[in-house]
């Protein structure tokens, strides 16, 4: 099964470049990527730009409405994702617990609906 690991973070608590803990976090993400690769299953994933870089689209009655920014202001935002393959939920949860940012925020594990 495929699972999406959705990383949520409070930017106030999460290390940023130049802040203490940043170098360590970078190294941890590197190690996490290696770990995923070692399972020999396809995966992808990347960090996302903050919500103030977002543009939101809504289509109503055939008309496209474009707005700047995210739909709702929340303290935590989606800061990245991984799309992984796992044999069962436990394996996906194990991978999620290894996402370095899980120490600062949360990682939501969602099964991909295979149609």
């Amino acid at each position: 099964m495929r699972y999406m690991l959705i990383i949520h973070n409070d930017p106030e608590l999460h290390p940023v470049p130049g802040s203490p803990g940043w170098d360590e976090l970078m190294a941890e993400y590197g190690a996490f990527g290696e770990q995923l690769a070692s399972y020999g299953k396809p995966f992808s994933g990347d960090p996302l730009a903050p919500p103030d870089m977002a543009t939101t689209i809504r289509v109503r009655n055939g008309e496209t409405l474009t707005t700047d920014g995210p739909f709702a202001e929340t303290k935590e935002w989606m800061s990245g994702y991984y799309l992984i393959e796992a044999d069962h939920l436990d394996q996906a949860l194990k991978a999620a617990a290894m996402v370095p940012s899980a120490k600062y925020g949360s990682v939501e594990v969602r099964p991909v609906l295979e149609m």
Partner: protein
Amino acid sequence: MTPTPRPAERSDRVDQALEHVYRSDRGRVLARLMAVLRDFDLAEDALQDAVVSARSAWRTGGVPDNPAGWLVTTARRKALDRIRRAASADRRHRAWAELAIAWDPPEPVGPIRDDRLRLIFICCHPALPMEARVGLTLRSIGGLTTPEVARAFLIPEPTLAQRLVRAKRKIRESGIGYRVPDRDELPGRLGGVLAVIYLIFNAGYLASSGTELIRVDLCDEAIRLSDLVTELLPDEAEPWGLAALLRFQHSRRSARTGPEGQPLTLEEQDRRRWDAQMILAGATRLGRVRDQGPPGPYQLQAEIAAVHAGTDEPTATDWGRIVALYDQLVSWDPTPVVRLNRAVAVAMAERPESGLALLDAPDLAMALSNYHLFHLTRADLLRRAGRLDEAVGAYEEAARHTDNSVERAFVQRRLVEVADRRNAADGPRPS
């Protein structure tokens, strides 16, 4: 003339055989079906279909040598029918299910494979909400019905049914694996299973102290479940610890309340009314895992209970040993309630003031400020220490924090006693 058995007798025998296999093998059969079908609803429905078939098939062809195996084989065929009938089933799912059913070896002749351990781990999976874990465990492993579970937990039946439907959907759609956790996950996951069983036991324990009579004895059910885990994972110590702990606690069931239903403390209980057989059964289980490495939290709690169970006179209790056991337990489980119980043990081993000093630690007092047993314990220690004015205040606080009428009456009685003692100490008051 050929003597033919009277139909009534035969159908009696069939019903008896069915009831027997249902009672003793239902969990095993359901677990086997789950292994093949990977779908709770399908497994349960197919088993129901198979039971209906058994009633007529066994009547004409006789009860098979291996009724449980017969049910598994028939249920598998029924599941296949159901999958083929279901117009909504998507083709991929259907093809896979048919394949899985076809692949599994048919017609088991020997005892059917025991998949109950996998069933337990799926029912108690931490990705499911706690009520669903309890409900699924009691229904699939324990064999209770949804109405029975709902009644035992005072949850409206439709609410529970809805939660179970959601949980089963989550098991299916989020890929919760039908598997026994790996070695490295096992301690945590096993702890989760034992927590579900302990919660079932405590629900039964609390329910039986009320006035309401419930049909299902959750305590017995929890004891059976703990035994099943020891049977399936005999090398793990904690299940044995839990199986022992539940027995020690249950051994006091007829002694733990007074004539008016009021709870009695360990010191007040008539120890001759403790169930000796059950204590021995607990001690045997505990003995099996003693000295097998550092004890876990259930084993430690069982050891504490064993000290009480092995003491005829409350005054002879080895409180020093109990404090030492609590010291170990706190390092596993530093929760406020464990610390509260440790404070009581310290008060008994030393002086009431030593226990009071621990209770009055600001973080503990804050964490338990709404817990009536905290105030009741404090009140009792204050009373023993002769600080009667403060004891009255603490009893009043305890009464404020309980909704249970029996408990409140108990606190009120203590309050009157202490107030009387205080008044006697003060001398007669002007009327």
